[in-house]
């Protein structure tokens, strides 16, 4: 493609180049700084770090507070992911395979937690849970997290189901396999990449969530992001950087897994 060149071309070309560079640097800066600062051998948060040491990671390892919070977060994220996958899979399947009255309403409701202001959603859940008496419990936190995962899970699995080659299912049925066998041996395996991508993305959505958890967590169910939040709100030292680095690494691994199995843009894109 050849474009005629004049001054405005040159400005747009180099201006665009600089602007894009700025944006990419801006995107990764917080993560890079936090990981860098976590290796400091000094006692203050600084970047570039003074020397190199793993002392702050040891501090995290021996901190009851952080380890318990990490355990809670992991347990919560895994449980919520399993539930969200079951609900999302059946929901996405119904949306893909049936036409019924109220279908678009049903779809809009499934996707709505992504655009409802999180504070509002949190308060709605908080008052509901205290009304039925499960506030400050693990169950309340669990279903809150399931709800915020649903849009991503339904969208990822919905795209996967839409792209699935249905003639393969028909071949299986024509060859005499029953619908349950076909589902188990043909549909689910074909859908596996979408299920993995939806699952790991759901996991990290829950693992990193702070806005909802701040409202729904109690003293016995403090999640890691809530713990970081309450630390950062008062004062902070390199321990927070070390524990944050662990969150960054987990997040990065999840992104790479998604990129490997289905491509990132299928989960977060349109």
């Amino acid at each position, binding site marked *: 493609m050849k*474009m005629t060149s004049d001054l405005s071309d040159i400005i747009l070309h180099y201006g665009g180049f600089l602007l894009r560079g700025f944006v990419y640097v801006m995107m990764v800066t917080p993560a890079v700084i936090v990981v860098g600062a976590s290796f400091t051998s000094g006692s203050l948060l600084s*970047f570039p770090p003074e020397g190199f040491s793993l002392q702050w990671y040891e501090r995290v390892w021996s901190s009851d507070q952080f380890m318990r919070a990490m355990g809670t977060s992991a347990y919560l994220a895994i449980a919520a992911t399993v539930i969200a996958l079951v*609900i999302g899979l059946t929901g996405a399947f119904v949306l893909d*395979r*049936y036409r019924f009255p109220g279908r678009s309403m049903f779809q809009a409701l499934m996707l709505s937690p992504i655009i409802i202001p999180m504070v509002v959603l949190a*308060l709605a859940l908080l008052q509901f849970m205290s009304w039925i008496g499960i506030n400050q419990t693990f169950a309340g936190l669990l279903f809150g997290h399931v709800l915020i995962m649903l849009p991503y899970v339904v969208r990822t699995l919905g795209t996967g189901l839409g792209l699935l080659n249905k003639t393969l299912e028909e071949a299986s049925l024509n060859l005499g396999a029953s619908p349950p066998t076909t589902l188990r041996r043909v549909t689910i395996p074909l859908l596996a990449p979408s299920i993995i991508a939806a699952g790991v993305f759901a996991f990290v959505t829950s693992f990193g969530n702070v806005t909802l958890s701040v409202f729904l967590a109690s003293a016995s169910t403090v999640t890691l992001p809530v713990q970081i939040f309450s630390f950062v*709100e008062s004062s902070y030292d390199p321990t927070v950087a070390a524990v944050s680095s662990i969150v*960054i690494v987990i997040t990065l691994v999840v*992104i790479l897994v998604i990129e490997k199995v289905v491509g990132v843009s299928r989960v977060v894109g349109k």
Partner: protein
Amino acid sequence: MKIIPQSSLTPLAGRRFWFAVLIAPSFLVLVTFLIIPFLGLARLSLLPGERAFDAEGVSAIQYGKLFVDGYFLSVLAETFALGAIVAVICAVLGFPVGYSLARLPARARRWRLIAVVLPLTLSLVVVVFGWMVVLGRTGVLNNMLMGMGLIDRPLRMVFNHGSVVFVLVQQFLPFMILSVMGVVSHVDTVLEEASANLGANRLTTFRRVILPIAAPGIVSGMLLVFILTISAFITPRLIGGSRVQMIGAVIYEQIVVLLNWPAGAAMSIILLLITIILLVSARAVSAILTGGRT
């Protein structure tokens, strides 16, 4: 009720039964944890007193109080102003990046896309903490500026509107970028090539071809960024401190600190209604932009 199966895996025989079994989990969760809680929230906002416990009666007094509360109205105005500023900055920065991502070959796109998705996936509190380390009194930026001899005592970079806008832009920019990328990647490059072949320069091609193509993506991206910004509360609380008041942080305070649930509920309902009105009107705007195509 007319239920029409769409594949051989969902046979016509017994379709009502299987349909009911399949829809049950999601239906129950949506009713129990979305619809009923929101009805409860609406009810809570109509309580007359300042406490929810054992309260009775229906009254619109919470809303009445809010609409004459100068502090609340100024917070609302400030929140909207910040939302608009963040949305515009995200559009200006996000459009070129989203557009170039859509046009890059898959291999070159991979790492750039991962860089864009990272802040979106990473825990918000970690992102904000990272910026606190950069912008703080003894932070990276202050140390750098002092090292270069540009300043001789640390500048106060947090606890003001500028830093809140900056951090919110960084958080929500990925939504803008992905929104533009999604729209542009569905459009063939042939239009831009035709424009170039016909002798248009970059500026003309940009103005007459690229911008109209990306317009729906920019509009929906800006809307999403605006909605996310007006409901933010972690960032204004940690980066803005007490100087930047946004509605999300005020709701959090009402609930967690002041324990005035009815007032917090009324504020939440107002925020929710504004969000819904925005979404509905944006759909109308984007229908006009795409000329009736969806």
